[in-house]
């Protein structure tokens, strides 16, 4: 493995919750590191969705970043105080 030199720690928000990541990481990788794999609910089927293609083709990992919708979290690096919002909050998953 080629290990990255330890990068600067960055704080950003995911659905209102503060999360730590490292400079140069795309949003999706930082979320993975924090144990978050589910990024949004599908607006048609209502199912949870996460990373699928990982390189920007499928748009499954999209979220609203600093107010701009449709941002692919797999392609976009995190920035200090960045606001990442998916439609994950507000929709209740049916806990049986």
């Amino acid at each position, binding site marked *: 493995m080629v290990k990255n030199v330890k990068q600067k720690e960055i704080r950003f928000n995911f659905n209102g919750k503060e999360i730590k990541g490292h400079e140069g*990481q795309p949003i999706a990788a930082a979320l993975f590191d924090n144990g978050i794999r589910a990024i949004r609910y599908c607006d048609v089927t209502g199912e949870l969705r996460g990373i699928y293609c990982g390189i920007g083709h499928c748009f499954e990992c999209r979220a609203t970043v600093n107010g701009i919708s449709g941002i692919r979290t797999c392609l976009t*690096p995190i920035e200090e105080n960045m606001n990442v919002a998916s439609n994950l909050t507000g929709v209740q998953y049916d806990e049986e």
Partner: protein
Amino acid sequence: MLQVILQVCSMMKSDVVIVGAGPAGLVASIELASKGLQVVVVDEYYRSGGRLLGQLYKDRRKKQVWAGKIIANDLVEKAKSLGVKFLFETAVWKIENKTVFISNEKIKQIHTKTILLATGAIEKALPLPGWQKVGVVTAGAAQTFTNLHNVKIGKNVIFVGIDPLSISVAIEMKHAGVNVLGLFLPAPSMLNQKSNPKEVLESIASASGMATNPIYRFGGKLVHGLYTKLLLKFLKFNLLKINGIPIYIRKAVTEINGRAEVESVNVKNISIDGELIGDGKNLLVDTVCLSGGLLPLIDLSQLASCVIVDIPELGGFVPLHSPYLKTTVEGIYVAGNITGIEGAQVSMAQGKLAAWSILKEFKLVSEKDLLQAIKDVEQARSLSPITFLPNIHRGRQIMNEKWADYKNTIGESFDG
């Protein structure tokens, strides 16, 4: 500044726009810039390298590690030192005549003399019941997150789809400390062509003319004489293991289960002819990596009105192009996986060829130089440590024939 940025209409000018900062695009940018052309490279990602970034393996023939990330960095540094301008996090959304329209904070369009499309490939989907669940990713995503981002994408992982890419990624993930439970075939259906154990083994064998990693050593054995006996043995006993990772050539995943995230998969045995047998078992996993193969990403070439041809030997639909990588649209060139699915080394050689082909238009290189660049591509192909498509040589031949036909129908006036 080499480029003139007109702030008023957010427009930029250049000699060449390269779409895609992968191996083909980077090499091309260096060749073009070193001969004094103004080059702009556009990429959606926030750093350059494309699929090189995720590649990490030992090239046994050259007795060295192929670390794509380092190679990419070296290429970028060189390109930047030559004045190549990079626009990252920028998507091309339209090409119209000689104008490239981009999604960029500052610049909306680039007026250029030539365009090189080096957009690479996209992974082919492998739909299985439940493949939309969180925790199902493509093999390419798994590779990128493991090798580039150093992220463990799961604890207990399986792969569906057995091919050179999935085997390589599985090995890389195991090295990264992930528990890889094995590689399986997808359940046979009209949705995939990757469920026949015999055909899958044969295609791995034919894709492995080299010995970069254990699968190719294994494949090499199949190629060199022991073929029938070994093949039958593997097919019969389902005993294949590579670097400790079981390759279940006779087991298929029929369904991915879990309420929202992946919790388990259903696995059934499969006959030599690709029929499901028996009741099957449930296997607890949290992550499934799907490997459906690669397809050239051609949408920009379609939009630019390039003639598209269907050549399965190259991976499917590709823009019709000359041996010099010119498309049917004047001023538009192609290099890398958009021309057919091959490894990074071939893409790099193609990047050089496309660049020289462009340089010839600018009268900066000779015909002889161009012929050498063609030879270099062929050499890279024959030395390539990885072959994705077994009949790639035939595919290239077909392309050349189709190009010749096209030239004949268009007439002598067309300079190919």
